[in-house]
C-alpha cells in the first residue's frame, strides 16, 4: 500500500487510543535506577571479591590484549611536558584478521557492521569489573597517598587494568595562569592534604588556598567509606577530588559514568585533565553543566556517588557551601594552565617559522581534509563548547556484551580540548584509544576522511606539539 494512503488512514485514529497502554504499565524494578542495599556481611563480600580478583584481572587483561598492542613503544624524542615519561606511538588497536586500515576506510559503515569488521578497540571499553564499577586508582597514586597521608586507595576487588607506560606521567607538572613565568610549580611532588600549604604559600591567594584544601580533603565515596558496601579493606575517610585529577591533571584513574542506567549500560570514564578549565564552557561528558562551580558542587553526588543521592545520604554526603567553599574550589581550578606549546601563537596556530614541514602539513590536514578544526576550534583552546554524536553505532552491532558491559550508542559527548593532548593518554571519554595514532585512525574511519598514510603521520606529529 502506498505510504500516503496509510497516513490518510492513520489520521482518523485518535491519539488517545494510542496512549491507552502507557498508563496501565508496571514500572521497571527499582534497582534498574537505584543502587540496591548490600545483602551480605562485609567479611563475606571481601573474601569473595578477593577470590574473584585474579579471574577479573585475567579476563580484563585478555580483553585488552585481544583489542590492543600494549607494548612499550615510545615515540623517539617525544616526552610528556614534565619530561618524566615518553609518549607512546603507533596504532595500537588491532584490526580484524584479513583487513587493513585502508581497506576498512574504503567500506561503508553498513558493510563494516554487517561483516563485523569494526576493530573491537574502537568499541566502548568496559570497566575492569563492570558489574561493580566505581573509581579505580593507579598504583603510583595509591602508593604516594599511602606514603603522604596513610590513606588507603587500594581496592580489594580490582586493580587498574592499563600498563603504566600507557598512562600519564606521574606526578604531572602544574602550570598556573597567574605565574606563567614560573613554569611547573609542583616541585616534582604530588599535591596532597599534607604538603599543599608549604608547596603553594606565596604562589596563590587565600581563597585559592582554601579551594585547594577542599579539593584535597577526602570525603566519603561509593567504594571508599565506612559501610559494608565499601571496596577498601579498612573503613575509609573517602577520596579527594585530586586523587583522580592528580596535580589538576589526570593519572588515568577511571570510573563509570554517573549519567546512565542500568549498570551494564553505563560507559567507562577516563579522568579528564583540569588543565585549561578556565576556557571550558561545559563540564561533564554527558551533563553539560554550564559552570565549573555547578560541576564542582555536584560532583559530590556524581563522581563520588554515581548520580545516586540516596546512596550518598547513607554513606555520608558532603554538601559544600556555594559561596564559601564551591566558589573557592572553582577559583583554584580556574588558574590551572595548559602546558607550554612554544610552537603555537596566541590563536593556537602553528608559527610557520617554528613548526617542522611535517607538523605544518599536519596542521593543514587538521584544518582541511581532516575536519578536526570543525569541533576543535584552535582559537578557543581547541574546544567548541558543544556535545556531538559521532554515531559510531553505524559501524557495529549494538547490544553485544563484553566483560559485562553492553555496547550501546554513546550519544552526544562533549568536545575535549587538544591542548597538551600528548600528556593525557588514553583517549576518548572512556579511554578506549591508547595513542594519538589510534585517535587519528578512529576519526579517519568514523568521519569517512580517507586520509593517506602520509597525512595520518603528519596529523599525529602535529597533535604532539599542541
Amino acid at each position, binding site marked *: *500500500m502506498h505510504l500516503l494512503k496509510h497516513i490518510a488512514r492513520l489520521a482518523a485514529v485518535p491519539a488517545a487510543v494510542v496512549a491507552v497502554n502507557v498508563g496501565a504499565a508496571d514500572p521497571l*524494578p527499582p534497582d534498574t535506577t537505584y543502587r540496591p542495599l548490600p*545483602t551480605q556481611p562485609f567479611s563475606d563480600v571481601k573474601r569473595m571479591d578477593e577470590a574473584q580478583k585474579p579471574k577479573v584481572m585475567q579476563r580484563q587483561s585478555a580483553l585488552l590484549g585481544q583489542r590492543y598492542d600494549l607494548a612499550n613503544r615510545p615515540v623517539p624524542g617525544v616526552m610528556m611536558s614534565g619530561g618524566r615519561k615518553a609518549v607512546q606511538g603507533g596504532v595500537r588497536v588491532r584490526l580484524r584478521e584479513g583487513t587493513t586500515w585502508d581497506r576498512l576506510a574504503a567500506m561503508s559503515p*553498513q558493510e563494516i557492521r554487517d561483516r563485523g569488521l569494526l576493530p573491537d578497540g574502537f568499541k566502548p571499553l568496559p570497566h575492569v569489573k563492570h*558489574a561493580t564499577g566505581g573509581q579505580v586508582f593507579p598504583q603510583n597514586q595509591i602508593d604516594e597517598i599511602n606514603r603522604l597521608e596513610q590513606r588507603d586507595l587500594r581496592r580489594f576487588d580490582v586493580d587498574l587494568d592499563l600498563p603504566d607506560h600507557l598512562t600519564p606521567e606521574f606526578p604531572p607538572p602544574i602550570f598556573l595562569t597567574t605565574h606563567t613565568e614560573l613554569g611547573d610549580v609542583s616541585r616534582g611532588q604530588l599535591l596532597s592534604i599534607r604538603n599543599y600549604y608549604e608547596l603553594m604559600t606565596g604562589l596563590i591567594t587565600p581563597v585559592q588556598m582554601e579551594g585547594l584544601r577542599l579539593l584535597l580533603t577526602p570525603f566519603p565515596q561509593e567504594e571508599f567509606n565506612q559501610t*559494608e558496601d565499601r571496596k577498601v579493606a579498612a573503613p575509609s575517610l573517602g577520596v579527594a577530588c585530586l586523587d583522580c585529577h592528580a596535580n589538576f591533571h589526570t593519572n588515568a584513574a577511571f570510573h563509570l559514568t554517573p549519567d546512565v542506567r542500568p549498570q551494564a549500560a553505563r560507559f567507562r570514564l577516563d579522568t579528564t585533565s583540569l588543565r585549561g578549565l578556565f576556557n571550558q564552557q561545559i563540564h561533564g561528558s554527558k551533563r553539560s553543566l554550564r559552570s565549573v562551580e555547578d560541576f564542582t558542587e555536584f560532583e559530590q553526588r556524581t563522581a563520588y556517588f554515581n548520580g545516586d543521592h540516596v546512596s550518598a545520604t547513607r554513606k555520608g554526603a558532603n554538601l559544600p557551601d556555594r559561596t564559601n567553599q564551591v566558589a573557592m574550589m572553582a577559583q583554584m581550578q580556574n588558574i590551572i594552565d595548559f602546558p607550554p606549546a612554544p610552537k603555537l601563537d596566541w590563536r593556537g596556530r602553528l608559527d610557520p617559522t617554528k613548526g617542522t614541514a611535517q607538523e605544518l602539513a599536519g596542521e593543514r590536514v587538521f584544518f582541511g581534509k581532516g575536519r578536526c578544526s570543525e569541533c576543535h576550534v584552535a582559537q578557543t583552546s581547541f574546544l567548541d563548547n558543544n556535545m556531538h554524536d559521532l554515531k559510531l553505532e553505524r559501524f557495529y552491532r549494538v547490544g553485544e556484551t563484553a566483560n559485562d558491559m553492553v555496547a550501546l550508542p554513546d550519544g552526544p559527548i562533549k568536545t575535549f580540548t587538544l591542548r597538551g593532548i600528548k600528556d593525557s593518554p588514553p583517549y576518548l571519554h572512556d579511554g578506549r584509544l591508547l595513542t594519538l595514532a589510534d585517535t587519528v585512525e578512529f576519526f579517519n574511519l568514523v568521519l569517512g576522511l580517507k586520509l593517506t598514510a602520509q597525512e595520518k603521520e603528519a596529523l599525529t606529529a602535529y597533535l604532539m606539539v599542541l
Partner: protein
Amino acid sequence: MPTSRFHSAMNVLAVVLPSLASVPAMGQIGNPGGLDPATSESAPGTPAPGQTNATDKLFVKLVGMGNAGEVDLGKLAEANGSHAGVKAFARRMAQDHSATATKLSAAAKPAGIPVPTAPGPDQKATRASLEGLQGAAFDAVYLQAQLIEHQKTVQLLEWEIGSGQEASLQRLAMETLPVVLDHLAMVQALIAETRGTVPQGLAGAQLAERMTRP
C-alpha cells in the same frame, strides 16, 4: 505492501542475526555485595550453578510474562493487523518469543525458578485495548504497545546482565539482548513508516545510513 524501507530494515537484520557466536560462554563476575546470602560456591567467590538472587527471580518472572504476552499478541496481530509489515512483524514476534520462552524455561529450570506461562498485567492490558480494533487503528495501538514492551525489555535484559547471579540466565540475557534491540529497531521502522515520520532510535541510525550510502 511493505515499502522498500521496511524491506531494507529486515534485510539488515537477516544478515546480522546469525552472528551470536561471539557471546562469551561464562556469566558475569558480579559484585558479591548483591549475592543471596545463602549462596553456595563452586569455587571461592564463584556462585555454584543454580544459585540465584532476587534479580534473577524477578527477571524470569517479568520476561516469562513478556514472552507469553508477545506470543499471544503476535498471533492476534497477525490475524487482525492490516499493514503487511505489521503482520510479518507480529508473526516474527510469535516465533522469536516462543523460542525464547523455551530457552528461558531451560535456563530457569536448574535454578528451580518457576517461569510464568501466561501474560502479565501489562500484556493483558494491551490485549484489552486491542479488542474490537481493526485496520490501521489496530496497527497503531499494537505498534505503540510493542515499542514500550521492547524498550522495557532492553532495560530488563541489561539489568540481569549487570545485577543477576545465575550464569545460565545471564548468558540467555546476553544472547537475547541484540535480538531484542533488532525487534525494537523493527518496531521503530514500522512506526515511522505507518505514521509517516522519521525513524527514531536504532532504526534511525540504520536507515539513515542505508539512505545516505550507496
